[in-house]
């Protein structure tokens, strides 16, 4: 059964059933059961107000596999760089009548804002430090493939939780699927309120790693560190990086993930990123099937 969505702004508010339907459908699509092309002759507008390679390409490939034409709207050279308001941009795109809008923007809540001003379903491809739902779904898809049902599984997310839309979406998605989510990072970057959202909080990585089934390393977002939440990348790497030594202490079945792009040698050692535990490229691969399932559900 193919799920139906009026858009996808956040994992918050989704039901477990909706998430499972999307994951199941992505599984069928990944095995090549796409069959009809529900977006044939339709336009999917990729509105990327913030740099992205992986997510934008992934949505583009997914849309094309469903038969859609893809409009790639990026800030460079568009009216956004000339000071047009987001409201005007969204109204203009809406006037062109795309079937679906996929949007990435640096402001939290911007996808919901856009959804209020367009008739097209809006898929949030990352809004500021709020959510990145398609990333969480592809992460859950990847984890399910390797760990089976996520009920009771322990998943650790490490890094800059404060500024991470990936962490917020994953916390919600994995919790919904029954996993126990732990968050770890410098105390300056782990809001204590995340505990009220169901996460267990750690500031010591070695303690946090005890008993995990998978660990998700977040990118150190150097561009968001204007308030210097930690002293140096070197110290960060030693205290919160997944070094080879730390990875060697983990039981063999523990998987390592990263939403990319990775800073080799900062949050994750090269040998770990490229090693047998790593699911990093598999995550990227699964992204296409997940985004096909999302686009199909919104079509």
């Amino acid at each position: 059964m193919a799920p139906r969505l009026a858009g996808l702004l956040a994992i918050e508010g989704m039901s477990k059933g909706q998430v499972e339907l999307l994951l199941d459908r992505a599984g069928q699509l990944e095995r090549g059961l796409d069959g009809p092309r529900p977006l044939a002759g339709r336009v999917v507008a990729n509105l990327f107000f913030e740099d992205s390679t992986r997510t934008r390409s992934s949505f583009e490939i997914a849309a094309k596999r469903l038969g859609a034409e893809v409009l790639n709207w990026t800030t460079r050279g568009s009216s956004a760089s000339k000071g047009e308001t987001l409201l005007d941009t969204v109204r203009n795109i809406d006037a062109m009548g795309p079937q679906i809008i996929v949007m990435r923007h640096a402001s939290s809540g911007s996808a919901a804002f856009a959804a209020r001003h367009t008739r097209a379903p809006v898929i949030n491809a990352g809004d500021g430090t709020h959510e990145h739902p398609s990333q969480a779904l592809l992460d859950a898809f990847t984890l399910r493939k390797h760990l089976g049902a996520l009920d009771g599984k322990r998943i650790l997310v490490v890094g800059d939780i404060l500024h991470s839309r990936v962490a917020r979406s994953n916390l919600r998605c994995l919790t919904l699927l029954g996993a126990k989510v732990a968050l770890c990072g410098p105390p300056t970057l782990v809001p204590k309120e995340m505990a009220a959202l169901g996460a267990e909080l750690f500031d010591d990585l070695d303690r946090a790693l005890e008993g995990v089934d998978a660990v998700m390393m977040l990118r150190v977002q150097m561009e968001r560190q204007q308030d210097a939440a930690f002293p140096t990348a070197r110290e960060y790497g030693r205290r919160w990086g997944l070094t080879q030594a730390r990875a060697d202490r983990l039981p063999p079945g523990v998987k390592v993930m990263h939403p990319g792009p990775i800073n080799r040698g900062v949050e994750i050692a090269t040998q770990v990123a490229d090693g047998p535990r790593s699911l990093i490229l598999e995550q990227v691969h699964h992204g296409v099937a997940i985004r096909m399932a999302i686009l199909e559900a919104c079509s």
Partner: protein
Amino acid sequence: MLVTALLIRGGRLIDPRNGVDGRRDVLLRDGAVAAVGEELLDLPAEVEVIDAAGRWVVPGLIDVHVHLREPGEEGKETVLSGSQAAVAGGFTAVVAMPNTRPPNDSPQVTELVLARARAAGLCRVYPAGAISKGLLGEELSEMGELRAAGCACFTDDGRPVMSASLMRRALLYARPLGVPVVAHEEDLTLSGHGVMNEGLTAARLGLLPLPRSAEVAMVARDLVLAQEVDGRLHLAHLSCAESVALVREAKKRGVRVTCEATPHHFTLTDEAVDGYKTSAKMNPPLRRAEDVAAVREGLADGTIDCIATDHAPHGPLEKEIEFDRAANGVVGLETAVPLALELARSGVLTPGRVVALLSDGPARAFGLPGGHLGEGAPADVAVIDPQAEWAVDAERFRSRCRNTPFHGRKVQGRVTHTVVGGRVVFAFEEAGR
């Protein structure tokens, strides 16, 4: 026809300064309160009458924190439109913040605001002068000149005085001028890039948090400075439980401090931001339920001296945009009375205390005329129907802007008449609007 006498008959006069709460007639003549009595019989030949039966008759309300946007941002508000909003809300006097363009750091700007207010002819407008030249927080403005031109206080409101040394000198220098230095308390190094109160809602929405310490640490600093130099300090829009506690302690020590709280801070928590509502974005931000409770307690026990609206008009260009880029501020003049009355109905405040916080309290804090209705006082009066039920409709605001988080809220209590200097400057007409 010029009516020189006005009788407000049969209302419940609530005049906290004079200890009155009961049925009285109030006779206004020649711009002053001529007589107050249970039933005035000795009336002038020509007298206009307002039947106030079943209504509250209170001293004209005074809002010590209003942004009128003129000069420089007349698209958002003018002295005229702001005055219209003020009198519709029962306010007979407002203190106009100096963060205009140019800012009110010179007597020329002060005089312009006063001239516009005279031309508007509605409420009394008291300009606030800048603490620092250009509101830059570097050098003292010409406070003496500003005071002579008519400024009622000094503030860099909208931004804090980050330099403790400058704040200390401002408190010292303003001391002989007899007016308060008004502080917008925010340590910018702590508020940083924060856009809403630190807490669960910020964590959920992925909005960068603004810790309470940004306000509290500065409140503590300025109380220390005011005590040390015996300065006259007024703290604007307190929002945190810890700030209220610090002021309570400072008052006990004899520090010459007064403070205000806004209707939005005593009514809403940061949960109102949910859905990225820019109409609930302001600075200081909406806080936790504990903070709302502490502010209410401060209003009740006298720690907080006045209710002030921080009326801050912004248009769609500043508000219909991404939350993190949206301007801070809400309009408040036309919703203050019913929101304050909610505190009376819920038993947080007595009716007398509500009235005091909107009249006597601000008059005393800023040394302004009015604030009471004793014989000889200015003939500034608000008549309120405390029972009237209505829903806030931002489209009907006299203000040029609609940025309110209270649109659609069911409220009770309506201003039916506003009188300034014995002249009716606002009368609510049911069918008229």
